[in-house]
């Protein structure tokens, strides 16, 4: 026990002396949360719109006003001729042009049918689709208002967005950032910390001492376990108080599964340390084998449901995918253990497998 404390104390000194890494460890969750929370967003706001309106009547003005009033659009240009449309787009500022025909209101009142055209800059297809949908919705809204009289046969669609009625992107990225930070701190830092001893030649001296190999590994892992718990707390506090993401489920359960995921990540770091010859390789393997798959296959950036089947199968071996599902279920949907026991079981299995494999490899290296 005394040996363990001596060793953990030494690890703390290592971490504490390396201020730059320490800063990265604690600054990273902060910066990621702020970037994802305020700078990056899947919403497209304040797109610039140009209008070509030859009829200039009550109906077109009403529509233009609604467009301009919405937070998604700013009407900045009024065009006079159809020839101006393309040059306007080419200048690159305008994302959307709305073209009204002549005598829009007359057509609407007398034939019950009027057309207008929405032209979007689709050089970025996602933005193009998104803003077209926004414009459609605004115009549909206006149309429904016109029809407020007793007209037969109208279908009113009421949409409800469950669990995230405001469609806040924070609901999506907070669990994602949690899994990324944990992987980064636990997997990468643990593997580097162990490989550093190998590279420096101190590992041999440790192995020639009465310390048991298991004790060496545990002492290496405990400081990073504590650091990760601090990081999780930072992320949760930030998301709760600054980004106003609720924690609907049980907090102890959330922390418990986070510790389970930390253990999975630590075992992975240990496995990497048995393979890597030096610190650079350890970092490289961690980034390539952990960071990219986590980004791509956890469902945090790209929906897994839309992937081709082989990729969907691959996504199952990425631990972050399961953790991401669990965190979303607990935090956003407020579900309990009965809903996530399958994912928890998978993560537990993965941890055992990785731990067994890496202890075996660690022993082989010694023998």
């Amino acid at each position, binding site marked *: 026990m005394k040996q363990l404390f*001596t060793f953990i104390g*030494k690890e703390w000194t290592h971490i504490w*002396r*390396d201020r730059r890494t320490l800063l990265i460890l604690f600054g990273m969750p902060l910066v990621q949360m702020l970037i994802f929370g305020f700078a990056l967003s899947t919403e497209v706001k304040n797109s610039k719109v140009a209008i070509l309106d030859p009829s200039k009547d009550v109906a077109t003005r009403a529509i233009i006003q609604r467009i301009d009033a919405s937070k998604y659009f700013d009407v900045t240009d009024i065009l006079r001729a159809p020839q101006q449309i393309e040059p306007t787009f080419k200048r690159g500022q305008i994302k959307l042009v709305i073209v009204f025909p002549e005598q829009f209101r007359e057509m609407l009142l007398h034939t019950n049918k009027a057309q207008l055209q929405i032209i979007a800059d689709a050089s970025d297809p996602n933005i193009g689709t998104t803003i077209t949908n926004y414009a459609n919705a605004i115009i549909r809204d206006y149309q429904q208002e016109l029809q407020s009289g007793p007209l037969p046969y109208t279908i009113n669609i009421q949409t409800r967005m469950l669990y995230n009625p405001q469609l806040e992107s924070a609901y999506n990225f907070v669990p994602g950032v949690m899994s990324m930070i944990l992987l980064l701190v636990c997997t990468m830092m643990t593997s580097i910390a162990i490989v550093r001893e190998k590279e*420096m030649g101190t590992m041999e*001296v440790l192995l*020639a*001492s*009465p310390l048991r190999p298991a004790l060496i590994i545990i002492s290496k892992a405990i400081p990073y376990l504590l650091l990760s718990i601090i990081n999780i707390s930072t992320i949760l506090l930030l998301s709760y108080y600054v980004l106003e993401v609720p924690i609907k489920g049980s907090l102890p359960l959330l922390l418990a599964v986070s510790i389970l995921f930390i253990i999975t990540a630590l075992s992975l770091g240990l496995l990497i340390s048995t393979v890597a010859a030096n610190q650079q390789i350890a970092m490289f393997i961690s980034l390539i084998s952990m960071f990219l798959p986590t980004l791509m296959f956890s469902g945090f950036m790209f929906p897994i449901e839309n992937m081709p089947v082989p990729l969907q199968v691959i996504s199952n071996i990425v631990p972050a995918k399961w953790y991401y599902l669990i965190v979303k279920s607990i935090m956003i949907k407020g579900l309990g253990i009965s809903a996530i026991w399958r994912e928890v079981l998978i993560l537990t299995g993965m941890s055992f497998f990785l731990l067994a494999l890496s202890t075996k490899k660690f022993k082989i290296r010694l*023998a």
Partner: protein
Amino acid sequence: MSQPNIIITARNLTRKFGDFTAVDNITFEVQKGEIFGFLGANGAGKTTAMRMLCGLLKPTGGEAYVAGFDVKRHSENIKRNIGYMSQRFSLYEDLTVKENMRFYGGIYGMSINAIKEKTALVAEALHLKNEQNTLVQDLPLGWKQKLAFSVAMFHNPPIVFLDEPTGGVDPITRREFWEMIYNAAHAGTTLFVTTHYMDEAEYCNRVSIMVDGRIAAMGTPQQLKETNQAASMEEVFIELARRAVRSE
């Protein structure tokens, strides 16, 4: 285990890695308080043999006893009774002199008071009294090396294994280093030293020269020079090493 003052015994000790026999049937004994030089070219099997004696590596054949314990079955007991200084520099550069000593004392289970006393002694002996709170990375190489040796001896082990301890060190520091080794031997510690430097081999009480995983010659430096009709250990070594079949 015939005589009581024999502290290391190796009998037909062998280690194979697949088809490759790194250490091939070596047999020798080291007496208590002896400085035993373990010479050999790169790849001759010195480090493998030493790792087996330290309990870091299991032999695939033969047997060995260190401090009365079987390397195959009681490597834990052996580890408690030895000090080890590795080829590569083995202190933590980002810890201070004091912290390094506290750490190594701690993992050998020494009490805090014992660590304090010993730290003061070592600092005194190495003239490091004013440098105790200096980071090891800021010390000159010679000091680091002497400190590493003191740390390997920190828990007063009866046997210390030194794996090429003087690599890259200037002649004056090497001389001081060997004075430390002599003092330790005088105090009853057994020292098992591998080295490349043939002038250092002359300082040893007895040396063995390994070629291709076997012990090609063993005896006092005087005996080896006489049997090989050589003027220096360097000549003896070159004569024997020339017969090597395998290279690095």
